[in-house]
């Protein structure tokens, strides 16, 4: 029976050849290319020389790269707590019978995540601006001109300041995902808990959270993957500065490759971004599986 709907090999080949070829060309060929060039000293010109593992030796000692890596980790942790944490709290509130305008909160909350990261970065530049920024004009209005500063030039604060827009942009996104998971929990479970005298907090931690565990894990994974590749906001807001105070891996790779046109070392950094991102994403998956298994046992 199945044979009657089995197409000819040639038909399948013709259908698949273009997408598969395009995919290999744009994803796998560059991967291999970066691996090859990471063994070369190549400043973008016609001359390349094979230098073995020298780029990697340099990378291990490159404090800027590891600083950038630590900033990526900072972003991941801040965004897991900020985005998913706040989203969860908001979801609990929005589900309450006392709250009005639920659809509006969903529509407005989700809106920033549909806007380009470049736009978000530019908008927040305006908010942080020293002369015409909203924060400084607010401080002036309440008579605390002494607190005004060039916000994005503050080395100590800059990581926090570039993280806030990122967190803000995606709270609504995770809120909506969690909301759709919670709506599948039967109201009977929550009502019977209420009759048993569970407080709102207890209901949230002991009933809602375990029941939407899988969705929370999906959110955490999305959050990690999203922040390991942070680039657009940083490029627009600080370009990694002041100094390297807000440098992230993708930004550093871009700067080395195109700013200093050091393509060999840039390729090496690309390979490192690839490996480190996979390790962080894979490691977190492993950790999550390990922890949740422990609890079920």
């Amino acid at each position, binding site marked *: 029976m199945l044979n009657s709907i089995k197409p000819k090999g040639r038909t399948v080949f013709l259908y698949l050849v273009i997408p598969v070829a395009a995919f290999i060309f744009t*994803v796998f060929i560059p991967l291999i*290319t970066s691996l090859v060039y990471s063994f070369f000293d190549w400043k973008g010109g016609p001359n390349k020389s094979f230098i073995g593992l020298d780029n990697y030796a340099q990378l291990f000692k490159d404090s800027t790269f590891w600083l950038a890596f630590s900033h990526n980790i900072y972003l991941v942790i801040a965004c897991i707590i900020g985005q998913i944490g706040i989203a969860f709290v908001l979801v609990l509130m929005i589900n309450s019978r006392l709250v009005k305008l639920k659809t509006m909160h969903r529509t407005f909350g989700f809106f920033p995540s549909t806007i380009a990261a470049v736009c978000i970065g530019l908008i927040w530049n305006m908010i942080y601006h020293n002369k015409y920024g909203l924060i400084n004009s607010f401080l002036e209005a309440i008579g605390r001109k002494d607190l005004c500063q060039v916000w994005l030039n503050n080395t100590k604060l800059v990581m926090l300041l570039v993280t806030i827009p990122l967190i803000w942009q995606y709270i609504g996104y995770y809120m909506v995902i969690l909301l759709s998971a919670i709506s599948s929990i039967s109201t009977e479970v929550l009502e019977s808990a209420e009759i048993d005298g569970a407080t709102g907090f207890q209901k949230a931690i002991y009933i809602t959270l375990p029941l939407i565990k899988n969705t929370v894990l999906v959110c955490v994974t999305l959050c990690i993957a999203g922040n390991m*590749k942070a680039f657009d906001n940083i490029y627009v807001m600080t370009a990694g500065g002041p100094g390297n105070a807000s440098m992230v891996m993708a930004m550093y790779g871009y700067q080395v490759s195109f700013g200093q046109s050091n393509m060999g070392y840039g390729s090496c950094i690309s390979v490192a971004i690839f490996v480190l*991102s996979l390790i962080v994403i894979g490691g977190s998956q492993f950790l999550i599986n390990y922890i949740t298994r422990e609890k079920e046992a």
Partner: protein
Amino acid sequence: MDANYGQTHKVRRGIAGFFMNFVLLAFSISCIFPLVWMLYSSFKEKRAFNADVMGLPTKPTLINYTRILSNSDYHLGQSMWNSVRTTAISIILIVAFSFIVGYILSRVKFKLNRVLYIMFLMGMLIPIHSLLVPIYIVFQRCGISNQWFTLLLPYVSFGLPMGIFLVEGYVKTIPISLEEAAAIDGSSFSYTLWHIIFPICQPILVTVAIIQVFSCWNEFSFALVLIKDVALQTVPLALTQFKGQFASDYPKQMAAMLLTMAPIVVLYFAFSKQIIKGMVAGAVKG
């Protein structure tokens, strides 16, 4: 006693209700406020804005818009067209290829099926920002960077994996007897694919298209690396240039941003329900 308890209970509920409504309203307003602020500020003149950054325009003017659109140095119209073209072609290709590959991987048994499946699965896991530098090198080598079609390749390739898996999962829910019946009636593979399966898959293909519209329109880093020609730049690239040119002219910058955001904003508020549903489905299943 009982009545008293009911009274305090009511008050507590009232306070809790007020608090929750307040927090959520504050959140919603914060999400929409930048858009509103930019909208009314873009009708102010630079001097009026600098004097009072928060106030409503006293003398609304369209000067920012006319200046941006009339000055061909800014290439805003050209950039918009580039973005529309790139996004539209990418979406069509992503939807078509996702449908074809997703269907074949889900239904047709052939030697390389598992290999291709794993390859596209890896495509989802690969941190694409590690490709930023090497993709530039490869495209430069092949002489295909800085062309009108350059961005189609990465956008389609990066959009494919999620589309394929959404389609693949969806096709599994279609009973195979449908295709068997079609085959008995003499329908060829291609006819079944396009005339029977394609209409059934429409909901999932709309989801794929929705997700990709936003990611293609908003994509920045690969455009930054692969496009050098101002006449070929997409909207996000153009905006970063305005940042330099209009450094101290915020109303103008806001007008430019609003123009480039307009298609997305209109699309979002017109179809927000479907868009939210589609994006969530894509995020959770993909």
